């Protein structure tokens, strides 16, 4: 039997009737048309479906839609606000951190979550922050650089270069 939930997705309240076994990833993709959130495994291994749920990066394929009743969800579609790309998205574009692009939305949501939580993440914090997001194309180098470019360049623990790093 379907259950009624109320969830804020990208700052819009949605009143929805959902099957109890539907995942948040499927709700976003197939019911709401928010297909920027990708599915690469459906078992919480690849991170392509990463969204920010109540301030934390989660695999939306491991969250049931009914669990998001009353919650706040941010997806990749909520990041660019109409004035063009969000700075993190722009950094991914500029640094060549995107190849096939299938992991990119999830990767960018994890990157945003790192930067929401730490203004100046160290190399290690950046690596850990995206360790649940698999990328088979890039070897992560340019992703590290893109995320680092959004930190202060004064952080001595950050070797990938800061704001002024030239690509």
């Amino acid at each position, binding site marked *: 039997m379907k259950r009624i939930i109320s969830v804020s997705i990208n700052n819009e309240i949605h009143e929805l009737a959902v099957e109890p076994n539907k995942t948040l990833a499927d709700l976003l993709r197939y019911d709401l048309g928010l297909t920027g959130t990708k599915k690469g495994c459906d078992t919480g291994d690849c991170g392509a479906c990463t969204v920010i749920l109540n301030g934390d990066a989660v695999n939306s394929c491991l969250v049931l839609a009914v669990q998001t009743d009353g919650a706040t969800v941010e997806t990749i579609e909520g990041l660019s606000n109409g004035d063009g790309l969000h700075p993190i998205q722009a950094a991914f574009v500029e640094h*060549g951190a995107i190849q*096939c692009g*299938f992991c990119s939305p999830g990767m960018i949501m994890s990157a945003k979550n790192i930067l929401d939580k730490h203004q100046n993440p160290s190399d290690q914090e950046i690596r850990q922050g995206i360790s649940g997001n698999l990328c088979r194309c890039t070897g992560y180098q340019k992703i590290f650089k893109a995320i680092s470019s959004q930190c202060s360049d004064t952080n001595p623990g950050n070797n990938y270069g800061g704001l002024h790093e030239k690509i």
Partner: protein
Amino acid sequence: MKKFDVISSRASRIDSPDKATGKAVFVDDICMPGMLFGALLQSPHAHAKIISIDTSKAEKLNGVKAVITSKEAGNIKYGVSPARYDETIFAIDKVRYVGDEIAAVAAVSLDIAQQAVRLIQVEYELLPAVFTVEDAMKEGAPQLHENFAGNLSAEVHQEFGNVEEGLKQSDIVKTTMMKSKRQDGAFIEMQGCIAEYDNRNILTLTSSTQVPHYVQRTIAMVLGLDIGKVRVKKPYVGAGFGIKAAANPMELACCVLAMQTKKPVKMNYTREQVFMYGRARHQFSHKITTGAKKDGTIMALKHECYLDGGAYTSFGIATVYYTGSLLGGPYKLKNMSYDGYRVYNNKPACGAQRGHGAVIARACFEQQLDMIAEEIGMDPLTLRIKNMMNTGDTTCNDLNMSSFGMSECIEAVRKGSGWDKKKGNLPKGKGIGMACGFFVSGAGYPIYRSDTFHGTVIVKLTEDGGTALVYTASAEIGQGSDTAFAMIAAETLGIPLENVRLASGDTDMGVDLGAYSSRQTLMTGHATKEAAEHAKQQVLEVIANQLDIPVQNIDVKKGFIEFADPVPDFSNLRTRYIKEHRGWTDNPDFEKLTFKEASRIAFLEKGSIVGTGKYKPHSLGGKFKGAAVGTSPAYGCSAQVAEVTVDMETGQVSIDHITDAHDCGKAINMTSVEGQMEGSVSMGIGEAMHEEVIFDDKGCVLNNDLAEYKMVTSMDMPTVNAIVVESDEPNGPYGAKEVGEGAIMPTIPAILNAIYDAAGVRMFELPLTPERVYHAIQAYKEKLSA
């Protein structure tokens, strides 16, 4: 050196803003009105006769629209190479691996389709199964395919020069083995497709594929359709690495379901099915003997290899040839022999993966070069430079290196890694190692025997002028080819990149063999350049005619027409242009005539301006059997240095840093070249350190997910210094050649040589699990103390 306006830059990729915002459409993002969902029934047994299939219960389930087996799908054989067509859409008489397709269902929802699949009843008679090369080659072993005795799917025997004589003349002879494990492509987007069949009997397949052209041909052949009524297109594709470089049975089943139901049908592999389908890198067992003189001259190479092929041939017949043909270079070598055997067994088929066929052979050979260097007291870099081929050299198996910056790559990694300071001076447990490699820049011949062009491109100028539309059937799968072609078109036309729009990946746009064998930059790049030149020439001819000046006095640069002195009076042309755009606010008032004006005038005179381009390589290679495999109009090459730490107590290896130099000819987009190099290194590290598809004793994949199949994560990846070495490739557009696959070649042997430097052990089996390295260290310590 020639100055470029667009290429040779770090332009942002044209597809990345859409990919960064989630707007880029991949196949599973597409939903069509009335769309049905398909599911496959796949064999639970590794080897069994099919006695009967009963689909009646499935057909009766509410919501089911079609159930198909080989009765509906037919028995036409297909595969990758016409020399080895050994698959049918659905198993007919027997199944040969766990996952072999038996039936498919289309239903109004995926849940119902999957329920219906479970209701199909198949009666099997189990047959004995074989899972290893050794078992499959035993006398009396169960046979997978009637026509292939001894389960030998393909064998190759080649000799160039005189290997026995070369070994006799050698002062040092090294023989070692190297064994790898079966890989998975582990692209993040699982294969998926949508088939539609319209009222005029046109079949359209939208698929996550690297090769729309080959998929189109396979569909037409297998389903007996007029090829003009089959269209294959790809949306954005979440990478492929070779595994998506052929038609898969799901695509074909999806087409049959759409034809039966006359509705769009969507099908996806689950991650488990991606592993079940396989088609990634084979498991290789090499035995290589290398002979050299005391002065370091390599004299002879004797190579034997067994490939664990799985149940069908897939790319395997090409793989087994590539394994031999791409080994001798990049070194001068007169005597080389190769005996290769690809063996069937009851596991999923293996196929092509980045560095097709050549990666593990190189891991073996490049270790031997280090062993020889050590024995004669020569620096490994010096030994390699001493034997290195030069630009213009041809290998003993007739591969011509028309440009070859290999020595420059070695010098770049020597400097970039601080090799001279580090080699021999690192503490115990720390090591540095290097290796070289090369790879084709596009297969010299199509997979099917044909005189076809390998790529055709259309460049159409918009009728209002100013924007160039590039149409190519090539496949952007993440490597950046769309951007490369847009840049080549912009450079050639002489207009800014933002004035180029590009559409690709659709068989309606022409012929393009697709994204495999690192071919697109060179081949589709050539066709793009030619099409853009053709379009530009038509515009220039009209303008020359109108202004009554010789056409060779005009060119286009940065969006403006450049005239040789004296600059003619073009005010009539401008007036004519402006008169047609009354009320427009962006009419030109530049000192120079714009390309936009010129192309509008050209349209007014000639109608739509369409430039066409095409490319096929010149005749390549020798005359011997298999000479075509390994040929290419150009070869990329690379050198890498790996720095590692080995824990001498536990056998844990960590890779600290990689210095990678690659000669890609002219870099069309510098950032994209580095991206390919870094990605190659990460895949090489995964294969060296962690990756292995593991089976149980019934032929089921045990680690069929991305948690237990250990690809490289952000925590594993060392820093990489990617150094782009540019050469001028005479056969490449603007001098460009490959980077996508050649860059993986040296990674594994560089790591292996670094481990030897750190721990004194030579590793002959991958992946380098702590257990395997620990045992090697223990054996080494025992040997030392004995």
